[in-house]
């Protein structure tokens, strides 16, 4: 069992997302993260799904996804050289008298940006792979994480190769 990153090219039509996610829950597969948005092809969207399963399960997921009429292409890019990013917004307790300076220092180390400041909180924006965001969150927990929002992972192959050209 390991995490697989699937890149799914779909028709940009109403209901596509529920067809895709419905299939996962119906067949008993868990989605670890999911990100969706328009892509370079007009009228299409790309969904990046991270899911955990053994090879047979992932093969079955991909075959079932391929059967959906609105799904154009499914690629498992887990084994490919790739770049991955995730964006997180984190609202942290940061009292000006006590911890604010420390929080801002941690943010600097992680190259997180401070995008909002309240009387007792700061809100950070950080991009990176999942491990980096996990690490930052862990560090910030001691100050009090009031709210955390993550986008889910998006990924792209390195170099000139594209998901469409890759097998």
């Amino acid at each position, binding site marked *: 069992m390991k995490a697989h990153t699937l890149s799914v090219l*779909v*028709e940009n039509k*109403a*209901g596509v997302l*529920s*067809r895709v996610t*419905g*299939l996962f829950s*119906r067949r008993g597969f868990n989605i670890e993260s999911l990100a969706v948005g328009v892509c370079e092809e007009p009228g299409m969207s790309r969904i990046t799904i991270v899911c955990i399963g053994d090879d*047979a399960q992932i*093969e*079955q997921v991909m*075959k*079932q996804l*391929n*059967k*959906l*009429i*609105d*799904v*154009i292409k499914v690629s498992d890019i887990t084994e490919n050289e790739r770049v991955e990013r995730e964006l997180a917004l984190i609202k942290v307790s940061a009292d000006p008298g006590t911890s604010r300076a420390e929080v801002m220092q941690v943010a600097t180390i992680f190259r997180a940006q401070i995008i909002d400041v309240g009387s007792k909180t700061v809100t950070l924006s950080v991009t990176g792979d999942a491990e980096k965001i996990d690490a930052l969150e862990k560090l910030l927990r001691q100050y009090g994480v009031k709210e955390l929002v993550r986008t889910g992972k998006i990924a792209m192959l390195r170099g000139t190769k594209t998901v469409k050209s890759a097998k």
Partner: protein
Amino acid sequence: MKTGARILVEGLQREGVETIFGYPGGVVLPIYDELYDSSLRHILVRHEQAAAHAADGFARASGRVGVCLATSGPGACNLVTGIATAYMDSVPMVALTGQVPTSLLGNDAFQESDITGITLPITKHNYLVKRTEDLGHVLREAFYIAGTGRKGPVLIDLPKDVSNKPIEYEFPESEPVMLRGYQPTIRGHAKQIDKALELIFEAERPLVYAGGGVISSDASEELISFVDTMGIPITTTLMGLGAVPCDHPLNLGMLGMHGTRSANFAVTESDLLIAIGARFDDRVTGKLDTFAPQAKIIHIDIDPAEIGKNKKVDVPIVGDTKSVLQDMLVKVRRKKEYDRWQARIRGWKEKHPLTYRRDGVLRPQLVVEKLSELLKGEGIIVSEVGQNQMWTAQYFCFRKPRTWITSGGLGTMGYGFPAAMGAHFARPDQVIFDIAGDGSFQMNIQELSTVATNNIPVKVAILNNRFLGMVRQWQELFHDRRYSFTELPPVDFVKVANAYGVEGMRVESADDVVPALTAAIDTDGPFILDFRVEREENVFPMVPAGAAINEMIGGNVE
């Protein structure tokens, strides 16, 4: 100017549809108004579920796409069981549902239900049409998707304003449907076919395991010549019955939970299993680890997702079974004699025939056997679900494809009677029998009114044991005969039939079986036969749940 409803009806006719099964309601009024003086024949059922099953029966008997129509909300929801039935057995169907006007969508309006959401997991694809302009091409796509590749039901949801709105519309000249995300593989890969032939040549004990895919791609002829040319014995699934004549010397009959001993033994001893249009369903395989334990597996299927789903496959071939078998037949260069294997199989067949007590008692198997003798492989046999279905599969000798219609995957009680109505419109030249249980028949008994009104000559043979027989059998075998809620009160089905204006006859002795069946066959209209059969007869042999398929119980009569 054409309204959406007019575009729909014209579009259906352009797809070659002659008959649809439906039930009117508020939001489909524009469509029904269009049907009022249309040449498209509409059969009014008495419950929407029956419309779906009738469309399904039509599709299975004809090989064409069946069509049903219902209103929004409760009407659409009543189609659901029928759509799921068609989905599980890969039956081409287009289900049309009315929907509340687009302005009210999502508003919990009167008779609104999210039918595209509800049917998402049980349709091959579905559409909610929001603009009248889209209707024409949606309809074309729906028929294309339903009737190609691995076939299946497609639902189109039509809001009332979409049906009502008049627009300027001309049907495009038949341009082929192009869908980026849907390109089924028809031809099998040449190298895979070579590999398969190589494995067949190496094998000592090969066995063909053929399923419903052979029927749905009309590959019966190719399958028979494959089996004959290669000399390979064959077993079929419930859905594959009729693909090869029951009395073909290499045919072992059905395999699986209520299959023949010879078929199950052959699977267990085989060293090469050639699965053709079959999907390794749990009712076929029993305990998976012990299914075909010595065999390499070739799997031919149009749906790549079926290959390797349940059982590891050595040579997968994705493609239409008809096309793949044709290619294989052309490529066969070397052949082998499997004399010892064939002799072993003949031995099993002789030693373990299907049998029941022929003791002059009115037993359900006798009814099926006599009907089979009378019809001599002609006619179309439809069944309900449960013991009646298994006895029909075991004791009716099917000789041609599309003469056996049954709900295999979903196992829908109440399927048979309306499906038989649909089959009649596909094959009006054929005698059509629904072999029923008293439980199943009562699930869509209201269709007596439909067959009476339209004089649909469906014959129903009720194997009436006043039990939900299959469940009772399991209670007898595995729950210490605690017959929890499986006994049914006696019903006078002849009286019920008469009340609807349908003829009927009660049969209480074995001697009356043949005269009664003959009377039904000789009657022009519908006919109900109420066979008061032995109440606690069991379907044997049987593989208990979780056992290996060669561990069968029962069915040996001295």
